[in-house]
């Protein structure tokens, strides 16, 4: 595999994405959110003991949990399937580029595209906060960046996996929407309404919930602000009795990252084995 070709594909994908309308909307949403938070005076307010930039980051987390996965899924899922649909793949792969270089180049380029606006919005919020003389929660910023990086990887990997298995981009969009809504709500509904009603073992229910990358991100993000997880009630005991808060945050970064790499790798294996056009 030529690293030069991989970077070439990543660079071209990045250039193409930056010009796309979806990227402008995507960047405006995250940048606009931060701006909105400042305008709305969230940094001046205090809720459940959180104030200033910590409060802003907490709000940012709540919003990114919902919108980041669906943004990543719908923008990435058409990466391979869309190129296949429109015969772009047929032409671009008529040059001596290996499938590895093409696929992983796309993954790399797309990761930068989806992660950078989210990170930069947060980064500028911190800079603006510093300028305004607010207390800067740098440890929270770095840990939260790690969590965002990890969750972005998970959904990017899932999106590339979907993109590789389906033939059309419409189908890819449909599946990605289902995955998002399933992880966001259905899995909770299933756990709460069915398993709890049936008196399933609590550890089993919590383990299944924690296998959801969105859920583990949510709990880990809360634990950054509330290490005892008091806002979660008794569920906190099940988690913190087994592992420490530090180790839980570590797992919350490693697990989604591993999941993303695994899905991306499975996607590549399918991409390699299937007809290209």
């Amino acid at each position, binding site marked *: 595999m030529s690293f*030069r*070709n991989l970077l*070439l594909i990543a660079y*071209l994908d990045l*250039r*193409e994405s930056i*010009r*796309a309308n979806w990227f402008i909307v995507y960047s405006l949403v995250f940048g606009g959110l931060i701006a909105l938070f400042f305008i709305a005076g969230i940094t001046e307010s205090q809720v459940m003991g959180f104030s200033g930039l910590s409060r802003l980051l907490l709000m940012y987390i709540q919003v990114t949990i919902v919108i980041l996965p669906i943004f990543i899924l719908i923008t990435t899922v058409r990466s391979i399937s869309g190129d296949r649909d*429109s*015969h*772009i793949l*047929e*032409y*671009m*792969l*008529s*040059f*001596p*580029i*290996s*499938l590895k270089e093409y696929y992983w180049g796309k993954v790399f380029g797309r990761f930068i595209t989806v992660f950078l606006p989210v990170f930069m919005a947060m980064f500028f919020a911190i800079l603006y906060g510093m300028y305004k003389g607010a207390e800067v929660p740098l440890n929270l910023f770095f840990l939260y960046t790690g969590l965002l990086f990890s969750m972005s990887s998970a959904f990017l990997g899932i999106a590339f996996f979907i993109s590789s298995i389906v033939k059309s981009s419409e189908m890819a969009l449909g599946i990605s929407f289902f995955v998002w809504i399933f992880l966001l709500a259905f899995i909770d509904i299933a756990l709460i309404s069915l398993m709890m009603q049936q008196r399933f073992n609590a550890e089993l229910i919590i383990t299944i919930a924690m296998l959801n990358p969105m859920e583990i991100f949510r709990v880990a993000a809360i634990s950054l602000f509330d290490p005892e997880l008091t806002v979660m009630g008794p569920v906190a005991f099940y988690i913190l009795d087994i592992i420490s808060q530090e180790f839980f945050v570590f797992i919350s970064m490693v697990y989604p990252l591993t999941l993303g790499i695994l899905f991306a790798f499975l996607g590549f294996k399918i991409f390699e*084995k*299937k*007809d*290209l*056009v």
Partner: protein
Amino acid sequence: MIEVNNLSKKFGTHLSLDSVNIAFKLNDSVALMGANGAGKTTLIRSILGYYHPSSGHVKVNGLDPIKERTEVLKHVSFVPQLPPPIKLSVKELISYVCKSSGVDEKSIYHYANAMKFDIKINLGKSFFKLSGGMKQKLLIAISFAKESEIVIYDEPTANLDPKAREDFYALIQESKKEKLSLFVTHRIEEVQEIVNRQVYMDLGKVVSDEKVDPYATH
């Protein structure tokens, strides 16, 4: 150069290629013809390594185009029937071709000029925003600049006006390099003067394969 042995390709229950056996050699200039659905494009795509055969195999210069795709594609130029809506700018597309295939950028400019396509004023434009004819001219220029031993043209003149078609066929005839050329076409009269072999396909099979004299019509 290209050997196709007992190649079959099924899509679901539809048999697109049915035990095709054919070989193409250096200096063959082939018109590959047949009705829609005859299997021409499937054969071309199998040669390019896009399709995994249901049975049989394809060898290009003795290599498997799926397992050794980069080695095979170093020696192949391809122009599709319809230029795809590539989102890259013309400059980025040229950069992709030059960096991935070691093509000389000046050579692309040279052939684009020969096709009456001004690259310089279109460099910053998105490829997909060019007109159909302009896109096709650029892809043709790229295919010539690559100087491959095997060139595959799938209805290359479909989007071209009569003058551009003439330019294209003039370039083919001027080309001195020894190579194998495959033209997928419905219009034999257009390629009659440049092909020395006519292959007809129907229902996934090669039904006729004849040597012809390209100068017979003169």
